């Protein structure tokens, strides 16, 4: 089998990683400018979306979801996060997209009582605040608060507080459960 040309590249890449990692600890601390915003790049029903990290309390994967009966079809069940139960909702279903097949990723909301399940995570994205553009008349604008240009992809920024407000009366059930 011929030697892959990527092997030296990977070696160099590993070396670069190691040096960058070491340098990050060697350089003096430079606080991030306040005008930047950290986003999670996700996909809902195949469409690119972005979620501000400031709206979530944590990102988890592979959590066991225990189904519970409920009135909302988007309610998948309950999951535990460090001793706290949270109601897990199907995020695409909440915003009117096709329901999930399998919920891999869970976004724990700021209140830590509600979690949103989705299937695809594209990664982290840090943008300037000024890069957030206002929405026009696009679909899903009820759950978005602007959008950003991620390369050639336009990502609406999901407005989690609006979703929490929509399911507000219901997520008290989990609160009640935790109280019990």
């Amino acid at each position, binding site marked *: *089998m011929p030697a*892959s040309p*990527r*092997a030296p590249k*990977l070696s160099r*890449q*590993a070396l670069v*990683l190691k040096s*960058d*990692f070491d340098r*990050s*600890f060697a350089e003096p*601390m*430079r*606080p*991030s400018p306040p005008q930047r915003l*950290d986003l*999670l790049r996700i996909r809902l029903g195949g469409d690119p979306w972005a979620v501000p*990290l*400031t709206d*979530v*309390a*944590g*990102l*988890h*994967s592979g959590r066991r979801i225990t189904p519970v009966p409920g009135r909302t079809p988007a309610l998948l069940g309950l999951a535990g996060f460090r001793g706290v139960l949270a109601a897990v909702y199907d995020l695409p279903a909440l915003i009117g997209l096709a329901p999930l097949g399998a919920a891999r990723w869970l976004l724990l909301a700021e209140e830590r009582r509600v979690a949103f399940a989705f299937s695809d995570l594209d*990664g*982290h994205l840090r943008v300037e605040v000024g890069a957030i553009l206002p929405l026009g008349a696009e679909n899903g604008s009820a759950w978005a608060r602007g959008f950003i240009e991620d390369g050639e992809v336009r990502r609406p920024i999901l407005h989690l507080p609006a979703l929490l407000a929509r399911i507000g009366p219901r997520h008290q059930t989990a609160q009640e459960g935790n109280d019990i």
Partner: protein
Amino acid sequence: MISRWTFGRRLAAGFGVAGAVLLLIAGVTYRNTANLIDTEDWVNHTYEVRARLADLLSGITSAESGQRGFIITGTETYLDTYRQAQGNAKAAFDDIKRLTSDNPHQQDRLTQLAPLIETRLANLQDAIEMRRASGADAAVKMIQQNGSIGTMGRIRSMIADADHEEAELLRTRTAASRDATTFTVGVIIWGGLAGLAAIAAIGTLIISSLARQIGSAVSHVESSAAELQASANQQAQSASEQSTAMNEISTTINELLVSSRQIADSAQRVAGSAEQTAQAARGGQGMVDQTSDSIGGIRRQMDLIVTHMLELGKKSQEIGAVLDIVLELAEQTNILAINATIEAAGAGENGKRFAVVADEIRKLADRVGGSAKEIRTLIEEVRGAVNTTVMATETGSKAVDSGSRQFLDLSSAFRQIAALVGSTTEAAREIGLSTKQQTSAVDQVNVAIADVTQTARETETSASETLKTASQLSLLAGDLLRIIRPGVGE
């Protein structure tokens, strides 16, 4: 029936008839001549008898004369005459008796005459004795007394009778001789005329028959000569064509001979090439065997490669599993970094430094995850390559197996080639031998054809001669026809 007789038989029959006529004439003539001679003999015999009768009488008379002379004269000389005459008379009597032995009358007469002659001679002797003893007178007297005159008279009479009988016989025999002569002359004349007529008739018959049949035969001969001429012409033409054809055949045979020799040379070269091919096939078989062994080695090496590749695939799979762990760890690290960022943002000013660390960890996790994905891609490529290699190796192994089997087949084919080439060599040798024999046979055929050609030429010459002979025969037939049929062809 006579028309079927041959010319020789006809001629023999004609000459036979003529000869028979002549023989008849000759026989009759001979018989008449013999009869005539016999008659003449009897005539002569009669003349001789009559002469001897005269001699007898003369002898007795002479004896009387001598006796009388002696008695008269007493001279002894007369007795000599007496004795001679007495001997003559006795000799004549004996001859007469011998000559007339076939005549009983004469024999009887001689029987009667003999004592008379004896008596007469005894009287003469007695008178002579008397003369000597008593003288002439006594003797005369005695002669007068003894009756000698009568005895002598009877003797004369009997001799005259005998002579008369002989004279009668002489007349009879003379007449018979004349008749026989006349008959013989008649037979000769008339027989000759008859024979001549018969010969003329037979000759005419034979000549006309011969002329007719020979003419017919000559006509046949003439037409046969014409046919023979035509046949000879055709034969000469055929012989000429045959000679030409034989020359062409001889040329073809010579070309065939050259071809046969070329075939023999080619067969010899083929045998040599086949022998070299057999050696090459044996060498090829050895090479195939060696290659088959090499293929076995390749097969074992490929099995080893497959084993190593499977081991490599297994290791790659293990690496993939490890890489999954790494990827999961990177993902978890990324999640932790994101959560750390979230927590750092919640920690206010104190969390900012932590946020920086979390950000670096997240970046590192992102890059590790990217690298892990690349490695996974590489691993997948390696596994794919291993699978492809294994499949290719197995395909190669199958190909090697197939090649090995094909090499076995090839080895078998080389053996068959060697065997077939051996057969080819043998066949080429047999072809060469057969072609040499064929060449020898063709040589013999060539010689035979040369003989046939020579024979054809001789036949042509002979046909020409036959043509000439036929022409001459035709001319001769014409001449012969003119000879036997005058006026024909003139």
